[in-house]
């Protein structure tokens, strides 16, 4: 019933627009582009609303974990604090340093932000509610997450600042190191589902059980690598404020800095949604509507990431590398082989 109530209005709207297009004699590919544009706009809206809430949540949660109150003054429970911050940053001066490589400097936030939106193309929100069910879903997600590396390297290199350069190289080394175990952990899930499409992965979980129970090892590897990919504490070496000022975004100010900030939280939300889909059965669940389940599971991962951030201290560079290459990678390889035996026999 819930499904009928939510999907009939968009469907009627679509049929009405299709009728309008045929009446006016417009080509149908234009309609497809229009539909995709509306989907993209809706998803950007979804991301923005959630990011505004996420930043508030992070500050509030951090406050309470550290026995403080967090934001309290702007709006009820300080809920409007992020909105106020966003408005403030919009009217702040944008400084491009004289030593910077101007065009690369300006392009870097764009290269960082765009993939964080594009991930959402394949995220299933509820049954049938998905921008496009790509048959190479998980590979596409891996490719989009990989785009962070060039963005951060561009930002750090073009800034013409020693801190930025150091931060960017750290970011590059860290992100590529943790990408391998991350992909291996996803691969084990793909083997169980027998498909790369995120929808098929959910369906496979409905038939058996949530993959977190079949893949406990893969889940732990995925969780650690995902947090490292997001540059969050304890893996925030690229930004390490106590040693590198602000790492790769030292020279960014005003709205360009805000884009990096937005990207960071959009990626946190995206990774959480993917993790919920791969390991917790996505939108499937009893009693509550699917979309609520999707949000609950996503926010479970968000909460976990925030909890870890405010609990653990930052790693050293050598510890960071050892954890990835000498622990996570062998474990993930063995996990893939074990899952292979499980699936093939």
């Amino acid at each position, binding site marked *: 019933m819930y499904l009928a109530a939510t999907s009939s209005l968009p469907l009627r709207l679509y049929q009405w627009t299709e009728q309008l297009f045929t009446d006016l004699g417009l080509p149908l*590919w234009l309609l497809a582009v229009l539909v995709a544009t509306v989907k993209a706009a809706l998803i950007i809206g979804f991301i923005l609303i959630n990011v505004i809430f996420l930043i508030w949540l992070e500050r509030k949660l951090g406050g309470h974990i550290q026995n403080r109150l967090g934001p309290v003054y702007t709006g009820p429970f300080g809920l409007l604090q992020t909105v106020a911050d966003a408005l403030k940053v919009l*009217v702040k001066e944008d400084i491009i340093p*004289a030593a910077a490589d101007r065009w690369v400097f300006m392009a870097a936030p764009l290269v960082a932000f765009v993939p964080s939106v594009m991930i959402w193309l394949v995220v299933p929100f509820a049954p049938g509610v998905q921008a496009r069910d*790509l048959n190479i879903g998980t590979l596409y997600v891996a490719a989009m997450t990989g785009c962070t590396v060039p963005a951060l390297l561009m930002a750090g290199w073009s800034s*013409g600042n020693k801190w930025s350069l150091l931060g960017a190289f750290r970011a590059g080394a860290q992100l590529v190191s943790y990408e391998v175990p991350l992909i291996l952990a996803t691969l084990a899930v*793909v083997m169980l589902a027998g498909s790369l499409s995120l929808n098929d992965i959910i369906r496979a979980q409905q038939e058996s059980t949530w993959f977190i129970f079949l893949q406990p090892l893969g889940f732990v590897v995925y969780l650690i690598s995902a947090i490292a990919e997001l540059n969050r504490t304890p893996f925030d070496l690229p930004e390490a404020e106590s040693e590198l000022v602000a790492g790769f975004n030292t020279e960014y100010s005003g709205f360009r800095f805000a884009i990096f900030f937005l990207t960071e939280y959009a990626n946190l939300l995206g990774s959480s949604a993917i993790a919920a889909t791969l390991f917790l059965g996505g939108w499937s669940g009893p009693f509550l509507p699917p979309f609520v389940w999707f949000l609950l599971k996503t926010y479970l991962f968000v909460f976990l990431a925030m909890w870890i951030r405010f609990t653990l201290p930052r790693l050293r560079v050598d510890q960071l590398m050892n954890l990835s*290459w000498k622990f996570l990678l062998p474990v993930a390889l063995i996990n893939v082989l074990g899952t292979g035996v499980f699936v093939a026999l």
Partner: protein
Amino acid sequence: MLNAYTDIAVFMTVAILFIMISLLLSRLLRPHHPESGKLATYECGKTPFGDARVRFKIRYYIFALVFLVFDVELLFLYPWAVTLDDLGIVALAEAAVFLALLFGGLLYAWRKKVLEWQ
């Protein structure tokens, strides 16, 4: 009818447009008074010295190389992972050899102290 890759292109365009429009909006609202002190490179308040594109550790390159090897090999595992259910035990044995080679490579890099960060 259009395929899924047009959707990807549309998503990319909309995301770029969103950033462009917000930057434009910000440009209309924000002050713009550049001067030499403001545009100087930030080095904790001191006068910046030397070029920022300094020499850096070769380690970063080595890790990028090791990553490249693993990432390309992972790409071969994707089709295998999807079809393993149908191909059965033979595909598993072949992949086991492949993974053993990968593991051997990792152990070699380990023993050669490539993975040490000094």
